[in-house]
């Protein structure tokens, strides 16, 4: 007997993912400038939503304050690049561990709040970060600051080279974040996390240290979110407390994406991001009505199809794109499926 992850659909899925990755890596050679920008933005949302999905969908930690770490990453990028002369790419890499380090005392504090009150606690933390950022006058205080042109030019000589560099950076970071999540979910901890997702109490009684695992997930999520935040503000070239710690941009959209795509499944945030961007292109002219519609769609999906659109597909056809499920392969089933025991 042995445990297998892959299914027929996941073998096809992995092949599709590989082809997509090659096509996306070559995008600078086939896509226009606007295309690259849009794709890079999509990648950052896939990364943010996947991280939130890990936090809320698997570990059951519903945070409405992840903008704390997006903004923190952004401000770390600006501080390191402008005040310490660190290369922006190195600054993105540093933003991850620093965000994780700061997440430790934050987690110790807000983990005292249970369930839904935890959610608002995360929001308070984000507000504290925003108010503190607006007190830092060397980084523009409340009105914000732009990244000096000299730092941007130092990244690459031509504008095109810079745009390619940032595109590949966004792709690489997103692949890294997804790789991190997949690796985590395929590990022992992943099995425990899936158990927590399905039933926390049962998981606990099976001997899983739920609190410790949640703590690890919170810190890992902060690590990834901080790096993505730094990248987002390298793309924007301008930061202010209100944009960096925006609950709409970095939490509301991310929650809608995950809920629509399918919470608690790795494919959900990717599907959700694609739908979200299609809706955004279609409804962009509607202004605030667009957000209103997004809110209504998210509520309808939460009530009607709580596992999201991918959840419907996965349950109907038994598909999985990435090999994450665990199936026990015995001699009998091996004969039937043709797998070697």
């Amino acid at each position, binding site marked *: 007997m042995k445990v297998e992850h892959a299914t027929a659909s996941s073998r096809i899925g992995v092949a599709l993912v590989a082809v997509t990755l090659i096509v996306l890596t070559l995008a600078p050679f086939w896509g226009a400038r606007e295309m690259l920008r849009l794709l890079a933005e999509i990648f950052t949302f896939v990364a943010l939503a996947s991280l939130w999905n890990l936090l809320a969908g698997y570990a059951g930690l519903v945070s409405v304050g992840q903008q704390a770490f997006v903004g923190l990453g952004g401000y770390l990028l600006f501080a390191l690049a402008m005040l310490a002369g660190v290369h922006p790419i190195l600054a993105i890499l540093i933003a991850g561990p620093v965000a994780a380090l700061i997440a430790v005392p934050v987690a110790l504090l807000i983990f005292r709040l249970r369930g839904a009150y935890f959610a608002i606690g995360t929001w*308070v933390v984000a*507000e504290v970060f925003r108010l503190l950022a607006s*007190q830092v006058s060397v980084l523009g205080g409340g009105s914000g600051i732009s990244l000096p042109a000299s730092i941007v030019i130092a990244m690459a000589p031509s504008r095109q080279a810079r745009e390619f560099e940032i595109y590949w950076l966004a792709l690489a970071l997103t692949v890294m974040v997804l790789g991190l999540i997949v690796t985590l979910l395929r590990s022992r901890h992943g099995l425990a996390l899936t158990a927590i997702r399905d039933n926390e109490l049962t998981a606990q009684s099976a001997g899983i240290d739920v609190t410790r695992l949640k703590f690890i997930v919170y810190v890992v999520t902060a690590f990834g979110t901080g790096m993505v935040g730094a990248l987002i503000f390298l793309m924007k070239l301008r930061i202010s407390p209100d944009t960096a710690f925006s609950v709409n941009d970095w939490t509301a959209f991310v929650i809608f994406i995950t809920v629509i795509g399918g919470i608690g499944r790795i494919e959900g945030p990717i599907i959700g991001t694609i739908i979200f961007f299609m809706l955004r292109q279609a409804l962009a002219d509607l202004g605030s009505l667009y957000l209103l519609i997004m*809110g*209504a769609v998210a509520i309808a999906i939460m009530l009607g199809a709580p596992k999201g659109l991918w959840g419907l597909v996965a349950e109907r056809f038994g598909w999985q794109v990435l090999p994450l499920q665990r199936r026990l392969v015995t001699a009998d089933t091996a004969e039937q499926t043709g797998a070697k025991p």
Partner: protein
Amino acid sequence: MTEWINVILQGVLIGGLYAMFAAGLSLIFGVMRLVNIAHGDLIVLAAYVALLVTQGVGIDPLTSLLLVVPIMAAIGYALQRGLLNFTLGEDLLPPLLVTFGLSIIIQNGLLELFTADSRKLQAGAIEIQTFQVAQGIWIGVLPLIQFVVAIAVIAGLQMLFYRTALGRAFRATSDDQPVAQLMGLDTRHVFAMAMALSLAVIAIAGVFLAVRANFDPSIGPARLIFGFEAVIIGGLGSMWGTLIGGIVLGVSQAIGAQINPGWQLLAGHIIFLTILAVRPQGLFPKVAG
């Protein structure tokens, strides 16, 4: 010295408003374990309802409460029966995400209807009336009314909880929902009554908020956070605790603002986080059992 006494007094009086934000939040959490992320936006919605009522009927804001309170209570009952009851269950996620979506809907709906312009309710001469309680120490009439109303609201909720049949139904459902149902309580109705009551309190808070300061569609989430902080500071499950929590928060903000205007909100958050660190059960937790 008198300057600081005035500052602290202002903080205590605004604490009454925060206690009203908190009482509605605490009430529904107590009865059905629901944390309403749209709580702050509903406060702002009440302010806009009051704006329409005062302009439409031509009455002053305090009298408008006679209409705004029942309107908001009706909205609360309908919201619970029509939407939120379907989200309740073992899983925490649906109520959180649905009320989060509701928050976005209310904010953007108000933005669409009323634009982002700041509004204020005009209460007339009473807004600027003050009286002197001691040499150099002044109290505004309106803040004092607000504080007295807050105490009355909390005392009223306390009475309702422990002296009436509805309160008994609330406590029974809170303790054990299936058993309460077996005893013949329609929990869907009990939950809807709790939400109606919560929104009635919200209506009072919203009107006082709108008389005191400018409001616009985006200020809801900050009110939710103030209410939440007051609940946690005071101690979960305690009605009088929310009053103390509101006062602690109000005084912290007032002192912070006096030292440096940029520190007003930060001071409140820091006191909240400090209390969470050293006394996570809050100052006056409900006695167990």
